[in-house]
């Protein structure tokens, strides 16, 4: 990439950090039964909880638009109803439903292939900083969608969703994850909004350099389950792919078969999971990168032996960190339970903020929210008893004075708050 473009990326990051310092940190928690927003103080010592939002709805992802610090998108469905997207322009005080949520083309437009229906939107990614109001969505089953109006209406990428080759690579429902095959890890190159990466479970990692008009697999040197053809994208299961903001030519991937790093323009993934302790292994779901140092990344290993328990190995949860691009890994478990903690952390449920020292966060499928203010050296639990945590994002949010500029209707949190007050009143002597 050209030097001037690299400089503009750095400048944009500096602006983002400056903005973060004047705003406040919010943790966006998406769960199987609703969404919660935790507002942190400047020191990240105390957290004020706002929620539940959409109590009982299945929220797969809740994402704040970094371009304005106030627009939230929530990927939602319920046990009975079809999928949709909710949008708030005031940090969750008021929500409105998308006018046209992600939906596949009808079968007639699919070149004879059976038509598909979106079960749920799984992943949301804001577009490039220069493309205000552009968002991307990844769905289950695998589908890619784009909005150019801030998430109000969504259009399918039929070149991928309905392409016979890609449809073959997506496999059947039996090739997908237990709660449905999905398209995830949609990444926009901060230097070029037309340069995209995405991943499919199953279906592999793919790249577009033309804004999504065409995609091609990016699979060299990635392992697949023994006995299968690694040249066939169907057999690849990337769990989570992240791009390093400080060096957008570097990607990390937590995969079904290990942990990998890719330094572009190379197309050959480097196996860095082999440097993990053998007793712990290199299986897991989330992948977190340092926003300022591309040599630093974190994973949350899980048991991938025998029947794939997908729990912390030996019931001893730990984060593993690398400071050298994956050549070595260090165990970080101070403050975490030392035994009998059989945690699962899903692929979207671990993240980092942009503060200094860097804060790390993860949520468990047993509903616990943990954080570290010192880059993983020490951990503390900041919430328990939440529903199964699906996704966690941390972001710099707009200030109260900024939000007061926006008016709207009643908050979805108000019904739960009213119910809580009524129960408390009934319990009073």
């Amino acid at each position: 990439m050209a030097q001037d473009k690299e400089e503009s990326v750095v400048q944009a990051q500096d602006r983002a950090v400056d903005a973060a310092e004047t705003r406040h940190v919010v943790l966006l928690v998406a769960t199987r039964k609703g969404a919660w927003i935790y507002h942190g103080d400047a020191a990240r010592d105390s957290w004020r909880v706002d929620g539940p939002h959409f109590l009982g709805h299945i929220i797969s992802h809740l994402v704040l638009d970094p371009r304005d610090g106030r627009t939230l998108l929530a990927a939602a469905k319920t046990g009975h109803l079809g999928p949709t997207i909710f949008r708030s322009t005031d940090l969750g005080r008021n929500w409105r439903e998308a006018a046209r949520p992600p939906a596949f083309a009808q079968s007639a437009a699919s070149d004879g292939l059976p038509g598909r229906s979106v079960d749920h939107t799984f992943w949301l990614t804001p577009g490039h900083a220069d493309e205000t109001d552009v968002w991307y969505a990844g769905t289950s089953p695998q589908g890619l969608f784009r909005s150019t109006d801030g998430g109000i209406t969504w259009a399918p990428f039929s070149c991928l969703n309905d392409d016979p080759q890609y449809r073959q690579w997506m496999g059947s429902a039996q090739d997908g994850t237990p709660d449905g095959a999905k398209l995830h890890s949609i990444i926009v190159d901060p230097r070029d909004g037309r340069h995209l990466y995405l991943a499919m479970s199953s279906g592999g990692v793919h790249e577009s350099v033309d804004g999504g008009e065409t995609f091609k697999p990016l699979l060299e040197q990635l392992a697949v389950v023994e006995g299968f053809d690694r040249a066939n994208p169907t057999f690849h299961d990337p769990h989570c792919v992240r791009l390093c903001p400080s060096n957008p030519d570097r990607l990390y991937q937590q995969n079904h078969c290990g942990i990998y790093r890719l330094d572009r323009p190379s197309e050959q993934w480097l196996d860095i999971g082999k440097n993990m302790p053998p007793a712990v292994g290199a299986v897991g779901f989330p992948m977190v990168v340092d926003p300022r140092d591309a040599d630093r990344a974190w994973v949350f290993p899980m048991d991938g032996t025998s029947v794939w328990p997908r729990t912390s190995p030996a019931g001893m949860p730990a984060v593993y960190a690398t400071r050298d691009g994956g050549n070595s890994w260090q165990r970080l478990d101070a403050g975490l339970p030392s035994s009998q903690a059989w945690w699962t952390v899903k692929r979207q449920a671990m993240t980092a903020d942009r503060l200094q020292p860097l804060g790390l966060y993860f949520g468990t499928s047993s509903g616990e929210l943990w954080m570290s203010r010192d880059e993983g050296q020490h951990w503390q639990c900041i919430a328990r008893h939440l529903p199964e945590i699906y996704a966690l994002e941390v972001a710099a949010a707009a200030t109260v004075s900024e939000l007061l500029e926006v008016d709207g209707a009643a908050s979805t949190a108000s019904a739960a708050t009213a119910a809580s007050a009524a129960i408390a009143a009934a319990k009073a002597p």
Partner: protein
Amino acid sequence: MKVLIPSALRSYTERSDVAASGATLAAVLADLDRRYPGIRFRMIDEQQQMRPHVRFFFDGEPLHELSQPLRSDGELIIVQALSGG
């Protein structure tokens, strides 16, 4: 006709029964969507299939096809069927 709305969809209608018109289930759902935008897609997917946990009954009889004709003086009940856990 009178349409009974399940609790999961009352965020759209803000009431448990509403009026809608149409000669078929498809037409009634289209009319409902005009009155309450977005409600149809929560029940019917993009391949025009009823979603797995949404059922329709007309005067007590189950409906399985969107093309099923309906009388204007009947009662359509939309039900959120079992979905556990």
